[in-house]
């Protein structure tokens, strides 16, 4: 049992390692591939167009050692990464890790808000639809889901802001200064997640409802409610939880876009901004963090699934 847990950990560990290598190499490639002179690019990001000039670029070149040979730069780059050192922000100075630490909390808050929102929608609707497949709820939720799934997060965000902030003035437009700021971004992301996950819940319930063990639980005398609680929901939760793992990818992507729309002080916004500013150390740091968070969250999902599914503990 411990062995299988160890294997799961090792697999995720390997995944994390590959993530780090890919991000590290792509980041370094970005550094080299930036058209024109990297020093000019970075100086532009750092000082803005009013203050940036050739002299500033020279200062940056010296500071970051961009005048060293290519291979020396690559070696040093990977070596610092191997020491879990994300380096210093090219543009803002100061350790990247410190910047990410403050922003990560906000992103996790938003992600948690989104997942909770999505579950609030997906669970009741999915279960109701799954209990009467082909029924009214099922068909309406299918239509709405397909439509919602086709609306990209940012477009949904705009629509929600126009309705709830500008017209109804219920929630603030952007930024973060308290709970009410969390609602619209969470809703934007959460609706997108719920659009698919309510169908996953529904399918899982339909499948569990049509199994022989569900029927046997009924014919041996359990009431519909007890069967639902003890058998159907528990077994149906397995594919649902697994699917939440798949959704993490959508969530991380969504965070990048939604944070930008809502001026949310999180890591996705920082990534977009770093890309604008050619702050490659920040790009590397944020991309790495997002990738590793995805791995960690999936590890949590793995462990949760093991908790729900005793079979995995036996092999």
């Amino acid at each position: 049992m411990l062995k299988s847990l160890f294997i799961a950990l090792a697999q995720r560990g390997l995944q994390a390692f590959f993530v780090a290598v890919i991000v590290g190499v792509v980041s370094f490639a970005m550094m080299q591939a930036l058209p024109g002179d990297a020093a000019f690019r970075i100086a532009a990001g750092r000082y803005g167009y009013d203050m940036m000039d050739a002299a500033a670029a020279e200062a940056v070149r010296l500071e970051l050692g961009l005048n060293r040979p290519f291979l020396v730069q690559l070696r040093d780059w990977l070596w610092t990464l191997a020491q879990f050192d994300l380096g210093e922000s090219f543009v803002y100075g100061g350790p990247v890790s410190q910047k990410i630490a403050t922003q990560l909390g906000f992103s996790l808050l938003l992600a948690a808000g989104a997942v909770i929102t999505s579950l609030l929608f997906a669970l009741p609707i999915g279960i109701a639809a799954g209990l009467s497949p082909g029924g009214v709820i099922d068909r309406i939720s299918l239509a709405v889901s397909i439509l919602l799934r086709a609306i990209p997060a940012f477009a949904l965000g705009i629509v929600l802001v126009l309705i709830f902030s500008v017209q109804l003035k219920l929630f603030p437009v952007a930024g973060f200064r308290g709970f009410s700021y969390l609602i619209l971004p969470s809703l934007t992301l959460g609706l997108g997640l719920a659009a698919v996950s309510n169908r996953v819940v529904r399918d899982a319930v339909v499948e569990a409802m049509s199994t022989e063990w569900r029927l046997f639980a009924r014919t041996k005398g359990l009431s519909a409610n007890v069967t639902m609680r003890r058998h159907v929901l528990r077994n149906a939760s397995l594919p649902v939880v697994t699917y939440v793992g798949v959704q993490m990818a959508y969530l991380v992507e969504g965070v990048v876009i939604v944070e930008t729309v809502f001026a949310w002080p999180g890591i996705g916004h920082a990534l977009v901004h770093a890309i604008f500013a050619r702050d490659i150390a920040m790009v590397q740091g944020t991309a790495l963090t997002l990738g590793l968070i995805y791995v960690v969250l999936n590890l949590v999902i793995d462990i949760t699934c093991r908790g729900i599914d005793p079979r995995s503990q036996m092999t």
Partner: protein
Amino acid sequence: MAARLLSGAQLSLSLAVLSILTAGIPGTLLGILAAWFGGLTDRILTSFADAVLALPGLLLVLMLAAISPGSWWALYAGISLTLWVEYFRYTRQRARITLSEPAIEASRLLGLPWHLIVLRHLAPEIGPGLLTVAAFGAATAVTAVAALGFVSVGVRPPTAEWGVMMTELLPYWREAPFLILQPIICLVVTVLSLHLSVGGLRKP
């Protein structure tokens, strides 16, 4: 306006179609390869795919977009590099199931060569699902291009692209709401029809 919408459609769809080809062909082949040989080949390919998967699609596209801001090929390369994993995972999983069926062992015992096994067993098994993956992949590509355009890291104005147009037209939403609705509707309808063409939300 109509011309810009059309040219946006052309951009998005040609990008989607191209990325289906460049992501789909290697992804499918690698998936079959991993399932066929199993063992070390499978493990290396799967680990690599897992790592790419852990970098949520948009991230890789964003990073490549950063190398060459506003350029078309960076978007294209990023999307292809991300999407192949879907094909790979799908093909590998289905091929593993199919290849473990007695029919394959029977075919081997009967001496049928590999290309007949691929042609008679794998292709009809994988084919229809592959279409679904491709349609979803194309929808992902179209959405990604628009999303990046919208946050101004994708295609740059004045190129006509739906996401870029949304950014351009958003300020006029109150004076002329139908303007901003046009690119949104185009995008939604495209994604919707891609999804519906392969049966709604049923992911393979």
